[in-house]
């Protein structure tokens, strides 16, 4: 199947767009955050995918007689950091939503705009 040759990248692109759609189109702030998480998760997949080598194993020290192929560990390390960043962002975003709920008593974007206009 040449069309889906590197299907990992299709997964990345589709997931990215699903997340982006939710961020742009949903009015509920929690749903927007879910979209944002999907959006970031897609990028994690992009990084993990690019480091994978067919048949590659974890890069652990080996003796001269072994001839293992290694997957590139660096993207995984990078994405570990990016996951932490993503979680912090999500936590802060949820915290802000809690405060918005306390102040406005709603988490629907258009209702908040309506209240602010008054």
């Amino acid at each position, binding site marked *: 199947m040449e069309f889906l040759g590197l299907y990992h990248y299709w997964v990345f692109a589709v997931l990215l767009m699903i997340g*982006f759609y939710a961020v742009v189109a949903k009015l509920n702030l929690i749903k927007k955050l879910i979209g944002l998480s999907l959006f970031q998760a897609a*990028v994690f997949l992009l990084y993990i995918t*690019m480091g994978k080598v067919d048949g590659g194993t974890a890069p652990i020290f080996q003796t001269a007689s072994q001839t293992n192929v290694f997957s590139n560990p660096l993207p995984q390390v990078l994405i570990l*950091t990016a996951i932490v960043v993503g979680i912090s962002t999500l936590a*802060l975003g949820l915290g*802000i939503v809690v405060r918005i709920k306390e102040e406005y008593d709603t988490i629907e*974007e258009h209702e908040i705009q309506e209240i602010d206009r008054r």
Partner: protein
Amino acid sequence: MTGLDQHLPALQVAVPMVASAFVVLLNPKGLAWAATTAVSAMSFAIAIQLTMLVTAGTPLTYAMGSWPAPFGIALEVDSLSALLLLVITGASTIALIGARASIDAQIAADRQIYFYSAWLLAVAGLAGIVVSADAFNIFVFMEISSLASYVLIAGGPDRRALPAVFKYLIMGTIGATFYLIGVGLIYMMTGTLNLADMELRIAGVSDQRPILAAAGFITVGLALKAAVFPLHIWLPNAYTYAPHMVTAFLAACATKVSLYVLLRFDFFVFQQNLDGHTFQFAAYLMPLAILGILVGSAVAMFEGNLKRLLAFSSVAQIGYIMLGASLLSAAGLTAGIVHIFNHALAKGALFLALGAFALACTSLRFETIGGIARAMPWTFGAFVLAGLSLIGVPGTAGFISKWHLIGAAMELGPPGLALVAVILISSLMAVVYIWRIVEAACFGAAPADFPDVRVPPLLVTMIWVAAITNIVFGLVPDLPLELSRDAAASLLGHVK
């Protein structure tokens, strides 16, 4: 270079970052303020020392943990970073010294320690972006500074700050994630994250399409963070409803740091390695810059809220910086970069003065600031001075950057005249919006129950320090100009 000097690039980030963890433990809130201000002043001193080292000789490089450059994380300070470091730490220090009364009025006492901690984290993050020479490290510092600034902006008493900061969080995260995708694509093709190494290795990449996609993702992502028109919609509300001192600090440096990364990436990595990228860069950014200048200034003329007005003016000023960069000439880049510095001086002083006004006024709208000129003559005097600098009156810092920008536009020949017209029209619009504030403050009817508030002496002093630097760098612009010229030469040195 001996002893401590060689560790300064790392200390620039480490000092505020480590201190931010300890500020939370300082319970009497005066102590937290004093410690934060002291740490910020120390960062400022480090930035000054770094600038002196850079102007004296070659750029400084620092290998974190002694790992050599392409493998370890490298820090690098050249003229461009030094200029930005001065802006970040200077704005933070001046705002903090004057901030005490305003922060006491706006932020509950028991939450102040966290506020100060977030402030230091923002300083550390912004400084980290500027000293990093590693693409992924820049992303991490970008997120540190963004998360800290979301906290700072949401800290104010106005509940409208919350939806504003939510919008900023969404758009900021999308911008940073776009940047991350771009870095990933480049890493996929080159196997390196070090900017200098990337520049060398991209040249050998046979299939340019992923690099082209990466250039698109990185440019759009950073433009989103830098509030380049039309990606600026998060900015006005975030600046308007943030605590006043936070606005003064962030308006001076936050968006400019993203512009710095944009310039650095585009000039160091992409321009010489992608066919036609130089043209694409100019053709994409120049119309946006012109639209940003005109639309930002025009909206500012009709805005009723003073902070919002200045926020829209910021959108226009970002346009000036982009316009200078998109000319792709030494003169244009110099003008754009020196405007980063000069605009920070003017906008920082203006927002500080608004913070002082807010101590007396119920809100910062034209109807409510009547008579403020009589109640706070000193603060108002400084506000007018900074306003003149924003307009670009000769003798102020704003004039220097506009003069150079016009000079750079004239180099283009006849088409440059259109750009000069844009700059002049926008300056005239700036005259209008600054005059509207002056008019309302001087001649507007004062409310009957105008409170008799004395502006704290520290705040007045700092507003004047900021205003006077506008004059000083307007009359003796050697330092920022020299740094900008050097930065422009080094950026262009990477373009074939």
